[in-house]
């Protein structure tokens, strides 16, 4: 599926004017608080009827102000996880979860109730009312309610913000699987890790305008956008493919820069994956280091160096045509190692975060 | 079937008693709707299913008559009443001294002087005696005679002008003067049968029963003057 969106609206104190195309997969809306992310999502859901705009999902025109088209929200079959939970206070958790099901076409395929509640850890709460839930519990029920409504498009507005890391780790793979099963997702998140892990496409918003939009890999590798993407959180995404499992259980992945070993990944050889590499997790060495605990050492050469005013720099290391890794170093290290564009070097990776790539995606 | 009687509310005590006797004798049970004469007249004009109307005032009966709804020849002035001055203190009053007896804060209770019959008669009588202009500022007008009586009975107003029939039955008040019959138009309660009622025969029987000595005795015990004996 593909989502085309253009939207102009003036709230008086804030005006928004954005347009972007979201291909198949997860598209992340990223940007500071008040940038207009929720506004965009509301327009897709049909909760905001913008002054000017057009929204086309998979060829269906949901909105076209020029042509006077406006499809009512209930006919869009959208699963919307709101920024605040918005649970129905008069219904039990179970009834909240099942609410959307009765309105969805019988034939449409949906998620399994027990699986979803287990994944969200809300199985014990089914008979409670939302008034007696904790903040994170409400957020989880809200996710479940949207997932179980058999949506054709998922809108997630900071769905995991109220959750602990462990719980997030249980929900993220589920969203990955939905994405891989072909469900298009528009995701708002302030966590660059989440975005890098889930999103193929990133739309960077600021002040009601699109600052940058494109494939996640391209945007994340652009040192000039690194600050917009959250400074210390900046990082890159490179493609990888599962090679096999080693005798000690580590899984070997092949990348353009050499092998990478991880503990936790799909084991089917050939599976395409995306590795997210945090810029501040990358150590640079001119020579291949020995005797280190770090197993993952990728060879490449310096492509670009962007110095910060605060004494640090982003170093872009090309490991293949169109594939780069960003490293965040002190300028002292840049000088000490004699790094400059064209210089050959090694990137030493400690941690890699990875997500399964949509096999059909670019 | 059972006849439907529309009767002025002030008739309730007497009429309920007569109706009980009538039922005992004939097995017919009149359904009596008590309300203000004006309301009843308007309802009859609006095609209410009534067989008989007893009004507390001539003018409302005239209205019904003008609408051509009365059974010809059935209209009669059935009852007469007397206008009296009541007070809580049992102390006869010379009506001409009434203005002097009322303190600056005291009120003379009457029914509404322009719309409710008892008030209209009272105003006519006071005017006839040349007392109205002096008394008018002190008059408190109630919406019916019973409310007038209640104002006196509760001590709210020291004096009130009501029908003798009402005064008789209220132990807390005493008749302290009676208005001369010529000081106001005759107080009469006209009765008539209504055309096209649901039970004309039974209604006629009740109409006639009202003239029986037994009925007359009940009416007179309530203080009415029976004109159709």
């Amino acid at each position, binding site marked *: 599926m593909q989502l085309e969106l253009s939207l102009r609206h003036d709230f008086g104190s804030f005006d928004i004017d954005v347009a972007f195309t979201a291909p198949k997969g997860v598209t992340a809306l990223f940007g500071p608080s008040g940038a207009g992310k929720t506004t965009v999502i509301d327009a897709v859901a049909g909760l905001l009827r913008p002054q000017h705009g057009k929204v086309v999902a998979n060829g269906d025109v949901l909105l076209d102000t020029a042509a006077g088209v406006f499809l009512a929200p209930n006919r869009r079959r959208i699963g919307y996880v709101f920024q605040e939970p918005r649970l*129905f206070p008069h219904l039990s958790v179970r009834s909240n979860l099942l609410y959307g099901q009765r309105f969805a076409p019988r034939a449409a395929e949906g998620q399994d109730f027990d699986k979803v509640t287990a994944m969200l850890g809300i199985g014990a709460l089914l008979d409670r009312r939302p008034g007696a839930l904790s903040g994170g519990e409400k957020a989880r029920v809200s996710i479940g309610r949207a997932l179980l409504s058999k949506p054709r498009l998922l809108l997630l507005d900071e769905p995991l913000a109220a959750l602990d890391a462990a719980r997030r780790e249980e929900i993220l793979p589920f969203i990955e699987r939905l994405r891989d099963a072909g469900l298009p997702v528009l995701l708002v998140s302030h966590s660059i890790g989440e975005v890098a892990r889930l999103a193929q496409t990133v739309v960077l918003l600021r002040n009601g305008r699109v600052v940058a939009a494109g494939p996640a890999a391209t945007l994340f590798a652009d040192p000039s956008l690194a600050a917009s993407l959250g400074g210390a959180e900046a990082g890159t995404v490179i493609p990888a493919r599962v090679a096999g499992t080693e005798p000690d259980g580590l899984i070997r992945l092949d990348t353009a820069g050499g092998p990478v070993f991880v503990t936790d990944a799909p084991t089917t050889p050939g599976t395409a994956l995306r590795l997210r590499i945090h810029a501040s997790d990358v150590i640079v060495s001119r020579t291949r280091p020995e005797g280190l605990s770090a197993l993952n050492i990728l060879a490449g050469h310096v492509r670009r160096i962007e110095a910060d005013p605060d004494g640090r720099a982003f170093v872009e290391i090309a490991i293949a045509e169109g594939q780069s890794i960003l490293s965040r170093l002190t300028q002292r290290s840049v000088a000490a190692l004699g790094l400059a564009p064209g210089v050959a070097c090694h990137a030493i990776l400690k941690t890699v975060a990875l997500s399964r790539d949509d096999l059909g995606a670019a | 079937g059972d006849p439907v009687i529309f009767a002025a509310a002030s008739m309730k005590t007497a009429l309920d008693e007569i109706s009980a006797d009538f039922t005992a004798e004939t097995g017919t049970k009149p359904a009596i*709707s008590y309300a203000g004469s004006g309301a009843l007249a308007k*309802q009859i004009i609006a095609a209410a299913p009534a067989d008989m109307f007893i009004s507390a005032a001539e003018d409302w009966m005239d209205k019904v008559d003008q609408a051509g709804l009365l059974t010809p020849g059935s209209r009669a002035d059935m009852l007469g009443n007397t206008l009296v001055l009541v007070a809580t203190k049992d102390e006869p009053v010379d009506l001409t001294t009434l203005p002097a007896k009322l303190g600056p804060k005291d009120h003379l209770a009457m029914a509404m002087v322009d719309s409710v019959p008892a008030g209209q008669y009272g105003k006519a009588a006071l005017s006839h005696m040349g007392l109205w202009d002096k008394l008018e500022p002190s008059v408190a007008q109630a919406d019916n005679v019973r409310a007038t009586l209640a104002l006196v009975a509760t001590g709210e107003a020291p004096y009130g002008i009501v029908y003798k029939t009402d005064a008789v039955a*209220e132990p807390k008040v005493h008749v302290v003067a009676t208005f001369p019959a010529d000081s106001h138009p005759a107080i009469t309660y006209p009765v008539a049968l209504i055309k096209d009622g649901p039970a004309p025969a039974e209604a006629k029987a009740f109409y006639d029963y009202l003239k029986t000595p037994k009925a007359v005795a009940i009416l007179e015990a309530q203080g009415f003057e029976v004109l159709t004996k």
Partner: protein
Amino acid sequence: MTSALGPVLSAEEWTAVVLSLKVATVAVAASLPLGIWVATVLARSRLPGLWLLNALVHLPLILPPVVTGYALLLTFGRRGWVGQFLDQWFGFTFAFQWTGAALAAAVMSFPLMVRSIRLAIEAVDPKLEQAASTLGASRIAVFLTVTLPLIAPGVIAGMIVAFAKAMGEFGATITFVSNIPGRTQTLPSAIYAFLQVPGGEVQAARLAGVSVIIAVGALVASEVIARRVAKRIGGQ
């Protein structure tokens, strides 16, 4: 029951009690759907002419009851323009029937019912209704599954004030359908009749007592129900 209350109520009064209950219940039940609809329109619609509907609904409150009764008589009486039509086409008439008393009670209590429901609707968070619509619920489904349950306490409150008012309504009823025992004589009409004759106060007080017991019973019951509903909504 008739016999149990025998010492307290005469057969005729007992009939009036039953009739009042019937009238008030039917008045409230029959006007409820319209009341909910009008309240919804007044709360949510932004049409320009709505003030007129609003004024119309409030009229019975503003006018002395006798005026309303008289207006009903002129409209729904057998000679009235609507009454005539109903009579001719459906053989149905309100005039001097208990149904007329119910109509009068419904009209008189309608503004109270609408106000309560409307306030409740205005308190519903539209964000919840939006959430329901994204989950596939049509406007009607949203209303039935979200709005209506959430306004239940307000609807109950509206029903109970309407019921209380209907139990006490007198001016419009007696003017419209008169005071015919067994047919249109409600408790308040019976009380009125007693108050019109000397010595009737005690009788009137007795009937008023019965009226109060019934209405307060309904009131307390409604509070219990409303509390329970509110508790469910509030959580646990």
